[in-house]
């Protein structure tokens, strides 16, 4: 066998081998592409979860439970079954979420239940409307939100205040508070959805490094960098709830909604303050 003949035979063998590999590869393409799309969707949800954690949880809760009387929950059954009809949306659920997140809401569609953060009720998030997020990021957030559908629980509509609201004047005289009722309010009314920063529980508990919120409140308003109006620990805590922008402890962001003064009664505020002051 000459060299030419050897190379021709080997070459034919290689071409056949390559052809075989490509054929087998080709038969798998269909399922590979399907799997790839699935994985892409999964990764989109992961990215959306991260973005949600950074941008959305402040109002809609880390687990999409919303904040009663402020922002609507995104993980409840009603959202997935009735919401499109409620607002008269003709497109798909995904379109609805993407559209809402992109453009935000100038005014709330349910001002009595979920007035939102004021004006606008929800800011625009798309960079096309002056927000910080790109289109693909908003789609990822939508993928994450839609992933709640299979586990969405039934929820009662949020209760309205049981009495006149406490308002934003921190010099107001509060009724006597009950620390036990305060604790139950703090743990059931959505505070913990944001205030969970330590390994031992809610952020107001004492940790190895810091005393509880009661002790912290006693000294905060006397610090030189304090910018609020409070003159007593009680007033400081009330101010933090009804006018959270007055003073933000360094290292934190001014993200707490500002309308608790309108949705909380004086008795509830007093109970909460009594509970917090008991944590030394």
């Amino acid at each position, binding site marked *: 066998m000459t060299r030419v003949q050897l190379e*021709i035979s080997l070459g034919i063998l*290689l071409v056949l081998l*390559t052809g075989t590999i490509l054929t087998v590869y080709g038969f798998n393409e269909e399922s590979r*592409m399907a799997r790839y799309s699935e994985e892409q969707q999964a990764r989109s949800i*992961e990215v959306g979860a991260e973005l949600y954690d950074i941008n959305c949880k402040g109002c809609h809760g880390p687990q999409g439970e919303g904040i009663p009387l402020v922002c609507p929950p995104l993980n409840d059954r009603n959202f997935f079954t009735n919401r499109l009809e409620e607002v008269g949306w003709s497109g798909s659920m995904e379109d609805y979420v993407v559209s809402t997140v992109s453009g935000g809401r100038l005014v709330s569609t349910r001002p009595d239940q979920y007035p939102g953060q004021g004006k606008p009720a929800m800011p625009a998030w798309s960079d096309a409307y002056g927000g910080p997020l790109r289109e693909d990021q908003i789609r990822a957030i939508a993928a994450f939100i839609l992933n709640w559908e299979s586990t969405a629980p039934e929820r009662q509509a949020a209760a309205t205040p049981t009495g006149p609201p406490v308002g934003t004047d921190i010099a107001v005289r509060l009724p006597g508070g009950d620390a036990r009722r305060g604790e139950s309010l703090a743990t059931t009314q959505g505070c913990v959805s944001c205030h969970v920063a330590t390994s031992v529980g809610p952020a107001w508990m004492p940790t190895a490094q810091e005393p509880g919120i009661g002790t912290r409140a006693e000294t905060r308003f006397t610090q030189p960098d304090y910018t609020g109006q409070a003159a007593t620990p009680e007033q400081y805590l009330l101010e933090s709830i009804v006018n959270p922008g007055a003073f933000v402890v360094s290292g934190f962001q001014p993200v707490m909604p500002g309308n608790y003064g309108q949705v909380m009664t004086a008795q509830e505020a007093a109970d909460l303050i009594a509970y917090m002051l008991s944590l030394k």
Partner: protein
Amino acid sequence: MLKSLDVENLRNKALQALDSRVRAITAGLGLNELRAVMRGDPATEKPNPRYKVHTTSFLFHIRPRYYERGSTIFAHTFRLGFFTAFLFAVELVTGLILMIYYSPTPSEAYQSILELESNVPFGLMMRDMHRLAAEGMVIFTFLHMLRTFLTGSYKKERSFTWFTGVILLGITLFLSFFGYLLPWDQLAYWAVTIGTSMADAAPLVGNELNLLLRGAPDIGAGGLLRAYLLHVILLPLAAILVISIHYYKVSREHGISLPASMEEGDVPPEVKKNARQRIDYIPDLLTHEVFLTALGIFILVASIAIFGYSAPLEHIANSQQTPLDTKAPWYFWWLQGMLKLGDKTLMGVIIPTLIVGLLIAVPYIDRNPYRSLFKRPVAVGIGLLTVITLLVLSYMGTPVYRIETPAATRILQDLAPEEGEGPLRSVPYDQLQPGVYEVGAEIPRDLCPNLDFGCPDLARIFAEYSRRVVRAATDLGLEDIERLPDAQAVMLIEDWQQDLKKITMRIVWNDPQSGDQKVYERLIFLHRERGME
């Protein structure tokens, strides 16, 4: 009528008609000649039609009529030049196909890659192959140059060919560099940001050059479009032109060099004579080239389909978020290494320009008439030193060398990198048992006794996490940046959604310099169907 039908004549006429058709296609090789070629027989006609082809056919005209036997010895050339050209052809073909699916705008580019990989049969393979052949081309270009240098084949009449070769090395690197940006992922965006920022450091025209490349102060729509057009039009055209010149010199003018020993060595005259024997293009060289092409395609396809080579794709480019461990493509690590050593203008612009100038000047500086390795120790020494320097610089270019990352960031980045898989993400989803795992002095033997099959992978990751935190907390011999005094570390796994878990890795420590308490935290969300990379 039947009488006039001469069967014998008819057969001949038919054969003749067929023969002339075949000759029209093969530019002069008749049926008998083709048969002789395949059998390895000598030419059947005079003048030799195998030579005549070279004047009648364009494609054969640009190929050589023969090579000298000595120059075809495998260990002399290793077919490096051939494979470089082969890979360039692969790039052209796969590149043209990829262009159908790609759109060069920041809002569409990344999506079009996802679309290509998820919705186009063989789309993923096309992209993998384009990338593999690109990396291969860089390797082969470099090796081809190294071989040419070591065999002294750049001397005398070949000095201009060497010059075009240096230009081609540059074009290859620039082609890879601008192609690197096109997927528009984090990897691409930041590697190219670093790369073009070197243009910024060029003296006098730096700012203008940078603007010209990026189209704006930062890479955006303008920069992507420019990289794209450079990658698909200007540079390929330049490459085709220079390759033509480079190749024409070899095939029509001076041929491939003979091994030094056969040209100038102290060998018997018949060896020299034998080395100069002509090997015809048809059939020997042609067969060899077709064989090498089949081999090359087989290797490319097998690397992807069997050995799993895959072009990376990170998260979509985000100009707001500089990733940790930013890295240039490996063939630019040497440059990144140099940048760590000094000023950007000196190391990133002036020295690389000098290197190119030196490379071009090699044939003119080196006046030694000999080509044998043993007769030019200085040149060979410098060559080897250069290779070693490149390797060392490349090592220094990786993030391993002299990039100081704070301990907590480093530990979490190693366990769950921002991009790519990392050990934590490769833990099977079912082993991610929700719970709070605090790092203590003792590493628990069984992390999740309630799971049927336990969680050995998770336990392994957690042990690694614990080991590194404890070491950083207790080893006083470490540098300040590597220490985590009084560290408390936790790994928190939560069920977050259907098929989605949230893992919080948090390290709290007292800063060794200021004594302040510091926290570093990383959130990782893992979906059951995320797939492995």
